[in-house]
């Protein structure tokens, strides 16, 4: 007994110590060779870095991805349980030739190339393109030119605005004088002769990053090995990594992001067609459909950030582009119960002491200074509906359904949850029957 108490005492003491250790340590910086990444993720480009703890880099097949080796300071950040790079403190380029090997044989030797990211819909847009060499420089020049022109226009705009204010003052002075002189004007006459305010210029709609030097990798599906050979012919220490190049398992699926009416910030993905949408009571659900591709979870997670965890046995759908011009159908069997169009919505806080909000349909005329909070296909579920046999699906404008757009909707009977406890004791009833039957057979 005493031994057991001592054992558990030591064990839990150690656990507490470990726990305390994990929380109390100050970050230790270590100088490492890391790869900074700018990789294609199926819909655009994303950046990350590969610390020494990760021995594999994951890239999408047949797409340009940019990587470069740098020496920087790396430290562990316990809150995210990830390593962070201090590029601001140390960012030293590792110069050399990137060698790609396949099955131990040298496949390619790459020199750094100029590259930049081109965002045709602007910096916050969903698409981005990696341009290289001349194209990168051209795009950047084009962007720089557009920005210069914009600044020129801005300058002109400010001048015009000063001019406008001046004219406005003169106009108001003149109106004042003429009024004092007994002259009368209609508002239409004033409107007609008022100096027009200059419109501010619009900035460039696109965005391009400044070209930089990276190794541009574009490979078919497979596993490779990379390393950097220095100018003196030696392999640079810590530059060797595995390279996994992969592609999607399935493409062209349909996924949803569902916004529950009563918690609009808690968006629920519903990507796998096998997933069932369980709903309860009176509901308003806002659906946002996307086209989606399916990737290996481990590969894709590691592609997004080499430090992400993931399972090689699991697959994940990745939303590619929003589906907008369709009709969402709410069906029971083949019967269409609701046909829903995509609409913009505004979230309005309920004024006063009552906490909460209302989601109302956005009306540009009534809300000229607002933008819609979100857009979606609103589905109203009534508690009077029967429980099973419902689906949603997406109907194309040209007719027919979107591939993989069907989902099952079940309305749960939450009111029966107490009956579950009664259901739980049925084995005991069987036990009593067995017991009584046997007791009848036996004599005391």
């Amino acid at each position: 007994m005493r031994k057991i108490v001592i054992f558990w005492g030591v064990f839990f003491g150690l656990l507490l110590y470990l726990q305390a250790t994990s929380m109390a340590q100050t970050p230790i910086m270590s100088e490492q060779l890391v790869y900074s990444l700018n990789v294609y993720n199926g819909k655009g480009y994303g950046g990350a870095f590969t610390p020494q703890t990760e021995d594999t880099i994951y890239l999408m097949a047949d797409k340009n991805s940019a990587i470069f080796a740098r020496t920087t300071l790396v430290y562990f950040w316990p809150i995210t349980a990830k390593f962070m790079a201090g590029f601001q403190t140390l960012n030293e380029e590792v110069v050399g030739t990137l060698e790609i090997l396949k099955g131990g044989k040298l496949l390619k030797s790459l020199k750094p190339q100029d590259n930049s990211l081109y965002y045709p819909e602007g910096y916050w847009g969903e698409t981005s393109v990696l341009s290289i060499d001349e194209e990168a420089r051209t795009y950047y020049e084009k962007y720089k030119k557009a920005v210069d022109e914009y600044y020129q226009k801005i300058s002109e705009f400010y001048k015009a605005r000063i001019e406008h204010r001046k004219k406005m003052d003169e106009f108001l002075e003149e109106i004042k004088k003429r009024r004092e002189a007994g002259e009368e004007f209609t508002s239409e006459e004033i409107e007609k002769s008022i100096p027009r305010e200059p419109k501010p210029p619009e900035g460039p709609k696109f965005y391009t990053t400044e070209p930089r030097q990276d190794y541009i990798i574009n490979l078919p599906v497979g596993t490779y090995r990379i390393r950097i050979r220095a100018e003196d012919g030696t392999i640079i220490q810590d530059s060797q990594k595995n390279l996994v190049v992969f592609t999607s398992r399935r493409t062209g699926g349909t996924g949803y992001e569902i916004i529950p009416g009563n918690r609009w910030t808690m968006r629920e993905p519903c990507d796998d067609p096998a997933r069932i949408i369980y709903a309860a009571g009176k509901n308003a659900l806002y659906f946002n459909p996307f086209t989606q591709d399916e990737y290996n979870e481990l590969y894709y997670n590691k592609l997004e950030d080499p430090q992400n965890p993931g399972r090689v046995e699991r697959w994940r759908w990745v939303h590619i582009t929003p589906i907008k011009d369709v009709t969402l159908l709410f069906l029971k069997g083949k019967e269409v119960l609701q046909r829903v169009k995509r609409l913009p919505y505004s979230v309005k806080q309920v004024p006063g002491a009552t906490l909460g909000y209302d989601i109302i349909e956005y009306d540009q005329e009534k809300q000229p200074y607002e933008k819609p909070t979100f857009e979606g296909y609103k589905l109203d579920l009534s508690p009077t509906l029967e429980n099973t046999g419902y689906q949603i699906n997406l109907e194309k404008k040209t007719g027919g359904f979107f591939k993989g757009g069907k989902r099952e909707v079940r309305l749960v009977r939450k009111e029966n949850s107490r009956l579950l406890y009664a259901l739980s004791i049925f084995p005991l009833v069987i036990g009593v029957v067995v017991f009584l039957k046997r007791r009848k057979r036996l004599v005391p």
Partner: protein
Amino acid sequence: MSKEKGFLSTKTIKVLTRRDLGSALHGWGIYAVTVISFLLSSFFLGRYLGGIRENNIRISPDPLSGFFFFPSVIIISFYLTVLSSVSVSRERDQGTLEILFYGPVNSSAFIFSKYLKEMLTYLIIVVFFFAYFWGVSGLTNLGFSLGLVKAIFLSIFLVSCWISFGLFISSLTSRVRNSILWVVGVFGALWALYFGQGLLLSLSTEEMPAFLSYMGGAVSVIYQAVWWISPLSYLSRGMDAVNVGSLWLYGMSILYSIIYSVVLIILSIFILKRKGVRG
């Protein structure tokens, strides 16, 4: 020494199994444990339904197969492990094992019958599972899906690992009390190991003091070894297969469980032969 001819007499196994199963069914344990596990599932289900009420929505491929089924399986597995862990030692302790061996019973038939009895007990519980989840589905409208059927089917193999492990412990021990202490001790140590491993993994090796780093390495090596020895790992592997929804993992989980069970049953037979009916 006498060679035990008729290595596995199916008739003997059948008779032994029938007696043991009858004895189990006439007791209260199987019903009580099943009810406890169902009450736990019902509690979780109630919370889950409450969650849907709060959020208006819950998206899941098959909630019954994951959240609510496996906690029940863990409780029942542990109960069956304890039962199997005392199955040999109790008969040895009470002397009934010797009486059986006076007759046409050998170590193989005896161990196999004990295994079969616990498996049949679980199959009866599986029938209860089907009835319970069918009832749950009817009451709540959470779907009784193919996924749940697959999870229940897989659980038979996972529980087999626990039962074989219990049998192995039982063949090693001569007293009921020792068997229970062993099972509780081993499971306690395994949980502690999993917990310790999880905690050490959450730490960066660079942040650790040297002795913790060494300890982490040692724990990691032990964990790797235990990963193939512990029945908990087989259950967690199976749960993972259901959770991930990978057919490959599902198949491998079944295969690993079969291999594990067979190895432990053979070891139990061997130990019983070596140790004898009197311990």
